[in-house]
């Protein structure tokens, strides 16, 4: 097993860093070429021990972003440019040999996926899945491993009998809890959670979210948490990045973003959240997100933006720090925001993934 020395990246306190990450879908079908710029120049980092939320509506690129940082790229999706660095690997994620990348999976980097119904092999008992995923990383004998799994479940207050069950014998909430137990068994440095509670009922959802947050703080993992539901972000994440049309438009401490949203899109999203006990009329945002195969020039939000100015039509605003730990990409938010000088410039180096 390849043992990778930890902490060799730029900033010690950052577990994940992406730099100008671009991931495009390139399709040719029945003679039509399409290029969908699903993630278009995202630079961000996740600090040690924090839960970083990624929010955005459907087709904003958040799922593609997750695929890119998880190295789950398959054609027609390609990494066109940019870097993904983790603290526990040397250099770029995509520069690693496939075997090494496979070796860090689950040991250092684990996942909790959307759709608890289908994420577990339907014809394999749960304990077999634990074995498949984690056994090789634990350096334990069979019996010790089984003991460790049982102990882990106990810590998460899950009954040990679930190990003998098949996935279809468990309720949706229980399956998602199993996935959390699975993802934290090796105590990885980094966990990617992709819409982990979207399919669950409200009562179960709250409990599963609590469990995620609990285990994360108990094991000291860092986490990126993706969901379209801003209410969930308000309750779970430490910092929050808002994506729109393949770009990060605002990022800051969750409390700051909610208290003082600087991007008009964020402001609208937050203002439209209904609350029990409040029937004050709320306006909705008009229009719909752009087609990423033919995105508008300039700021991609400008066709829907109430504050749009002339410059927004031509220039893409750079993500600029405007307050402590709070970055925004909007010309209207502050005069400090400058156009990003990336459109078309720089050699877009294609990093093709070998399967």
């Amino acid at each position, binding site marked *: 097993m390849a043992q990778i020395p930890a902490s060799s990246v730029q900033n010690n306190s950052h577990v994940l860093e992406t730099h100008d990450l671009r991931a495009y879908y390139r399709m040719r079908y029945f003679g039509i070429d399409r290029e969908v710029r699903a993630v278009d120049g995202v630079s961000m980092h996740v600090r040690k021990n924090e839960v970083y939320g990624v929010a955005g509506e459907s087709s904003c690129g958040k799922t593609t972003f997750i695929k890119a940082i998880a190295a789950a790229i398959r054609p027609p999706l390609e990494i066109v440019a940019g870097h993904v660095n983790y603290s526990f690997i040397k250099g770029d994620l995509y520069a690693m040999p496939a075997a090494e990348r496979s070796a860090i*999976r689950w040991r250092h980097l684990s996942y909790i996926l959307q759709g608890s119904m289908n994420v577990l092999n339907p*014809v394999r008992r749960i304990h077999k899945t634990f074995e498949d995923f984690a056994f090789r990383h634990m350096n334990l004998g069979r019996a010790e491993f089984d003991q460790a799994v049982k102990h882990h479940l106990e810590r998460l207050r899950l009954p040990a009998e679930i190990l003998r069950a*098949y996935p279809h014998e468990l309720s949706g909430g229980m399956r998602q809890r199993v996935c959390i137990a699975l993802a934290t068994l090796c105590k990885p440095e980094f966990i990617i959670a992709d819409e982990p509670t979207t399919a669950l009922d409200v009562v179960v959802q709250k409990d599963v979210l609590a469990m995620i947050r609990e285990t994360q703080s108990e094991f000291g993992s860092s986490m990126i948490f993706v969901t379209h539901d801003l209410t969930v972000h308000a309750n779970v994440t430490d910092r929050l990045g808002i994506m729109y049309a393949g770009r990060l438009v605002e990022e800051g401490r969750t409390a700051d973003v909610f208290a003082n949203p600087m991007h008009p899109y964020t402001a609208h999203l937050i203002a439209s959240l209904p609350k029990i006990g409040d029937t004050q009329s709320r306006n909705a945002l008009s229009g719909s997100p752009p087609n990423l195969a033919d995105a508008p020039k300039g700021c991609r939000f400008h066709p829907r933006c109430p504050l749009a100015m002339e410059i927004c039509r031509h220039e893409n605003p750079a993500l600029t720090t405007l307050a402590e730990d709070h970055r925004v990409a909007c010309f209207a938010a502050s005069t400090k925001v400058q156009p990003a000088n990336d459109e078309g410039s720089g050699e877009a180096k294609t990093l093709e993934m070998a*399967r």
Partner: protein
Amino acid sequence: MRSYVIYVGKRVLQFALVVFVGISITFLITHLTPIDPVEHSVAQVSAFGFSSPESIELLRQSLRELYGVGDNLWEEYLIFWQRLAVLDFGPSLSAFPTPVSELIGRAIPWTIGLLTVSTILSWFIGNVIGGLAGYYNRNRILRIIGMIMMGLHPVPYYIIAFVLLIVFTFMLPILPSSGGYEMNMNPGWTLRFFGSVLLHSILPAFSLILVGVGSWFMGMRALVSNIVTDDYVTYASLAGVPERRLVTSYVMRNAFLPQITGLAMSIGAIFNGAVITEQVFGYPGIGRLLVEAVHAADYSLVLGITSIAIIAVSAAVFIIDIIYPLIDPRVQVSQ
């Protein structure tokens, strides 16, 4: 457990229905046609002029009995079932007075042996290669195999069997061209006899496998290319589950299960193929017996073989259906 009993109960009913419909069609074919098969057969036999009038009368009598002499169609139908229940199809016409059941009893082990081996082999080979071709869909060798399979698949049994016969017995005479074992060898539990049986079964089995493999290959490849995009496979591959485990326990295992029910559905078709194969390779099974019986106008034998074939094929399907829920953990609950 209770749900399994319910499941089995349903299958038993379905099995009974298949046998009922199949046998009824058999009855109707023989009884609703304008031709009286008894007189027809008797005429054919007497045309050869080898029998005395008495023995022809005897024949007519036993045929009438088998045909089910009754006042009406319904009574004949009941008689037909009664005789079927004790597998009594009377004496064979062409091998008079050997009972039909004995002739069938002699031939059936050959067919069952040939079919079992070739069915399981083609199912297994087709599914494994098809599964690999679905998973490694860019592998050049697997792609070429895929093209060959697709090319072979639509060719009818007869032609493949015939080409094999020409290639391996005329052009490259390395395999015996006909029979189930070497001529003038005494059947017995000896190693030599067994070796001879094996040698003689190579070509027929190979031809059956060659035609059978293609549809499994294509079905499995399509299944696997769907399964690789399923969440649990994505999840496991993100988890860095070693590729071999991923292919076997995650992809193949799940794709194999629907193929088991497919196996049940294809058994009837395999049986059709075996009839031709046996004819081409002179294999002493039930298929060749059927063809010979038709040529010899042996009414009781044809009727016997048809009935037995229907029962045997539906029994094979029934057995596969019964085993299936024991293999797939998901069927226990509902269905």
